[in-house]
Structures are given as structure tokens and as C-alpha cells.
């Protein structure tokens, strides 16, 4: 295997491949209902709609749908699954951890998470060697975090 293949294997970690192939609640949308948030990467045209509600401070993920690369779709899948049924503040903290990990490679606080989830998030570490792909990993996380913070 070439050095570049190692980087590619790291980028397209099996966790990412699995979530890309079978994303969480992908397409499970209520017919004729308007999406809660729409995220869009103007650089490439990737675009997702997310259906989410906060009831009594708890998150209910309706589903998500759209078009994008494997990294953006897998990141959305991991984060939406991890926050479904969780408290809002807990989810905001998780999204902030994820964003810090992608942007800065910050791993210290991931140890506070459930081990399985921490491993899933670490699977996105390959983007550190592909800075142009960080936006893909952050596409749903950034919009979702902004929306959650704006909820009363």
C-alpha cells in the first residue's frame, strides 16, 4: 500500500463507509412537512434538509435527506443518531466537541463521551490530512448547532 492509500483508508474509515451506505433516518421524512433546517455547501452544491424537534428539552430527529459526499452524509448520520432522544444542552456540547475535533484535532474531551460514540467521532480524524474536506464533515454539524442554540 502507498502512503497515499494509508491516508485514503484513514479518511474513508469503515465507520464512514457504513454510515454512508446506511445513514441514520435518511429519507424518513414526514411527507409535505417543511424541513426544520437546510444546510448547503456553496463550494460544491452539497445540500441536506433535516427534520428535528425539541420537546421538553429533548430532541426528536424526524430524519434527514439530501445530496452530498460520503463524509458529509456519514457525519450527519453519526450526529443525528447520537443526539436523537438526548437533552438539548447535552447535544449542543456534543456538537461543539465534534466541531473542535474536526477543526483543531482536539481529542482531549472526547474521553467524556460514551466509548462507542467517541470511536465513531474519531473515525472522522482522517480529514486532518485533507483540510479541503473539513467543510464536508462540518456541514450538518454547524447548521444543526446554530439551530439548537437558537431554540428557547
Amino acid at each position: 500500500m502507498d502512503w497515499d492509500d494509508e491516508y485514503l483508508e484513514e479518511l474513508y474509515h469503515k465507520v464512514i463507509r457504513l454510515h454512508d451506505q446506511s445513514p441514520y433516518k435518511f429519507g424518513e421524512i414526514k411527507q409535505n412537512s417543511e424541513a426544520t433546517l437546510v444546510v448547503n455547501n456553496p463550494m460544491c452544491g452539497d445540500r441536506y434538509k433535516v427534520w428535528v424537534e425539541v420537546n421538553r428539552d429533548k430532541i426528536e430527529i424526524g430524519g434527514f435527506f439530501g445530496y452530498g459526499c460520503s463524509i458529509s452524509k456519514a457525519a450527519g448520520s453519526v450526529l443525528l443518531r447520537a443526539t436523537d432522544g438526548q437533552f438539548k444542552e447535552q447535544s449542543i456540547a456534543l456538537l461543539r466537541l465534534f466541531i473542535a475535533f474536526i477543526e483543531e484535532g482536539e481529542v482531549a474531551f472526547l474521553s467524556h463521551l460514551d466509548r462507542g460514540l467517541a470511536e465513531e467521532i474519531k473515525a472522522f480524524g482522517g480529514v486532518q490530512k485533507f483540510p479541503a474536506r473539513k467543510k464536508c464533515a462540518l456541514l450538518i454539524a454547524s447548521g444543526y448547532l446554530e439551530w439548537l442554540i437558537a431554540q428557547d
Partner: protein
Amino acid sequence: MDLDDLNLKADFPIFQHFKKHNLPFIYLDSAATTQLPGVVINRLQQYFVEENASTNRGIYPLGWEATQRYEQARATVAKFLGASQPKDLLFTAGVTHSINLVALGYLEQKLKEGDQVVVSVMEHHANFIPWQRLCAKKGAQLLVMDIDPLTGVLEWEEDKYFGDRVQFIALGLVSNVIGNRQPIEKIAIRAREKEIPILVDAAQSLGDGVDLVGKLGVDFIAFSGHKMFGPTGTGVLWVSPHRQSGFEPVILGGGMVEEVNIRETSLAEWPRKMEPGTPNTAGALGLAKGLEYWMEHIGSLDYFGHLQKLQKEVVDFLMELGGVQVYTNLEDGRGILSFSCDWVHSHDLATFLGQKGICIRAGHHCAQPLMNRLSVESLSRVSLSYYNDGEDLELFIQQMVRAKNFF
């Protein structure tokens, strides 16, 4: 002499750089920007090392000579385009700048509520948004010409595109996504009958650029230097002499005036009134040198034949690979083709190939109306230039096969 035998890569230092370091570098993104031949890089260096002075201002020899060289560059571009007068050419920062100048400096003065402007669905955003915004501002209507989605050819013959309310037509000569040349000559004949001004975005038209003024019979031609072997931040707008009256400068400043007093300003003659501020002299010299290089080394050869041969090789391979939809036109191609794979997203493919030293473009290519027309969100694009050869394609093909296995 055939282009295949010329080994043009030897003239482009970036290829030598990667070769020296034993790194793969297969550049298939020339529709985004072409690489620079050594003569252009040397010309830029020579200017900054030996000739740098402010154009149109210096009385001292170096300043005067800089002005002379700048005007000589204008004459070289005029020769390339077949323009009878160098003064009909403006140096700009690129095709985007050129088109915005026409929208804001020319058409905005004339466009009224209820008028119509014609563009096509295949336009690059640079030749779409300025007209869309101007129409919205003036209460005018943007008529969007369709294409045949299979061939990419404009469906231009409907009378409505040449109606009494149409005040302007703006079209690309070669699509930056599909890569086919459009029949602008025929459209221009219809437009002239109705005295409708027509602009051509010639950004992807290096090979088509020679004698373009005479060939097309249009009113405005815009192109960028960095897609024609020149440096970034350079471009040209050619304006037919009879469209220069009433074309007002959009940006005001030094170097473009006859006289300024506290009550009013009188502007200099064309073209100086249209080039405010200190000109990008080095850029103009580099742009002209890139065109000179093309005319001297490539212009007499079967350059389209070379591109079309390579283009066909890529298309044949992709069709055979499977799970690929190709968007191009082999009959009138210019070495540009786009494709989607049902087994990988274009960004993932571009990342994979990038790791192998193969540079392709992925995304919407600043042509979202066309993406919508083709019902695709994102495409991969291979765009070839004269320096590409069969060896480039061998490596591309080899890695595409690996990519399919990888994903």
C-alpha cells in the same frame, strides 16, 4: 509536426518541478486555470526585476518604457483576436470583471422596465448573475435560452430571443462543463438584423480565440488571461467601436481623466477612461506573452484534433468503466468533459485522484442553472489542454479503475 511529438510539458516549469521531485502530477483542470509556460514566468520576472514603473504616468525613461510595453501588450492581444484597433481592447482583472463592466457601464444606462436580456442555461455564473441582477434592478426580464441536454447545443432559433423587447444577448462560446463550441456566428447574424448587442464569454476559448473578432461578428468579447497561459488577475474586454459611445466607466479614479476641478471632471478618451488606477502592467505583459507563446508554438498545428483525440479516449474509457454518465460533445469538443458516477460522489473521487497526483475538478463548476437543467447536483470534470498527452490519460485511467475498486 504533431502536438503529441512536441513534448510541450518541457516548456511549462510546473511539470518539470514535479518530475524533478519524482512526484506524480497529472493536471486535468485547465478549464479552471491553465499552467504557465516558462516564457510567461520569465516575462513577469523580467518586468519586476528590470522594468517596474507606473504606466501612463512616468516621464522618466523607465516609466515611459513601461507605458510603451503595456500598449505593445494591447497590440499583441489585438493581433491574437484579429481586432483592427488595439484601442478597442480593455485590460481587466478577468472575464468576471469584463462582463460586469458591460452590465453596469453599458447596459445599465440603456435597459428599461419591460425590456428583455437573453442568456442561456449553460452559462458560467460570471455570465449569468450580472444580467440576472441588472434585470431585477431595472424591472426587465431575463430570458434563459435552453440547450439540448444530450449535445449541449443551444436551442437558439426561437423568435422570442430576437424580439423587439430584447436589448442584449450574452452567451458563452464554449461551455465550461460540457465543453462544446456554440454556433455564435449564426446567433450573431440574427442579432445584427435586429441591432441587438451581443456579448460572448470566451473564457474557455484559447484555441477558438484566434481572429475571434472577425469570425463571430459580435459586439463584446470577454476572456481571462489565466485560462490562456497567462497569469491570474488578468483579462480582456474587446468592445466594438460602435458600442463604445455611451459605455461609461464603472470605477473612477486616477489615470482616466482629462481634467478634474471641484465642480466637475472630464474623462480621458477611450480606452484610458475605462482603465482607472495604476494598470496591472506585469499582468498585461504576461497575458500577451502567453498568447504569443500559443501563436508561435501551437497555433499552426492541429490543436483541436489533439484535444478531441484525448477527449474521445477519456470518454470511451468512462463508458466502458460502467456506472458513469458522461456530459460532453465529441463532435465539436474542446477537451472538456464532465461525468457522474453512480458508485462515488464527485468530491470523494476528486479526493482519491488528488492523492494520486491527478487533478480533476468536482462540484457544480459555477454553473448551477446547468446542473439543475441536467438534473445533477455535482459532476466530476476532466479538462484538457495542449500540454496533456497520452501518458496523462494512462495514469488517469489506471487510477479510475483503482478508485472504482476502492469505493
